[in-house]
């Protein structure tokens, strides 16, 4: 069965620090997709990134970067030079199979950035 584990329930750092959010997943599918979503205090879910199981290249988007390692079943998310606006709950998610139509979410990590 598929499962996503975000062991860090809450993280608090001072602004401008780098922070890494961990995500470990379990699946028996050979083709699958991994996602990160951001949920700010307003409640909406913001799509950040999708990565398919055949693409292990790391990705960087501005201050955000993602490290996908199939060998350890991990898909970690790093925010460089954090800002107060980064404060949110971040969810890692895994598709059920290759269609990405059913998504299983991790429990989320609440990130607080202190000024």
């Amino acid at each position, binding site marked *: 069965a598929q499962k996503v584990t975000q062991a860090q329930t809450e993280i608090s750092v001072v602004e401008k620090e780098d922070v890494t959010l961990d995500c470990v997943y379990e699946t028996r599918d050979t083709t699958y997709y991994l996602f990160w979503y951001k949920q700010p205090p307003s409640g909406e879910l913001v799509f950040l990134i*999708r990565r398919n199981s055949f693409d292990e290249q790391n990705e960087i988007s501005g201050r955000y970067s993602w490290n996908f390692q199939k060998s350890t079943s991990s898909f970690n998310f790093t925010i460089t030079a954090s800002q107060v606006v980064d404060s949110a709950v971040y969810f890692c998610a895994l598709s059920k199979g290759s269609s990405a139509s059913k998504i299983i979410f991790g429990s989320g990590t609440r990130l607080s950035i202190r000024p």
Partner: protein
Amino acid sequence: SAVISQKPSRDICQRGTSLTIQCQVDSQVTMMFWYRQQPGQSLTLIATANQGSEATYESGFVIDKFPISRPNLTFSTLTVSNMSPEDSSIYLCSVQAGTYEQYFGPGTRLTVT
């Protein structure tokens, strides 16, 4: 991407009553999904709503409690029936846009007293 709206944005309801939540998308989509997020928890998929067929419910969710309609490719409703305080949650609609991305609506915050 897709722009999704939900109505109502929030509501406070009495136990035993029902609430229908609407989800509108700005483009035609094949698959729409309904999720529940209980306070402080992660998201759980309730059901998949396909146009022209009955919704497919996940384990632990039943049609009598959460009836879903999907009359066309841009609209869906979720009804929370015979509500109890345990139904207090955020209910989110999402759509699959393109091949792999799911986009979420702003959610409906439901409080049952």
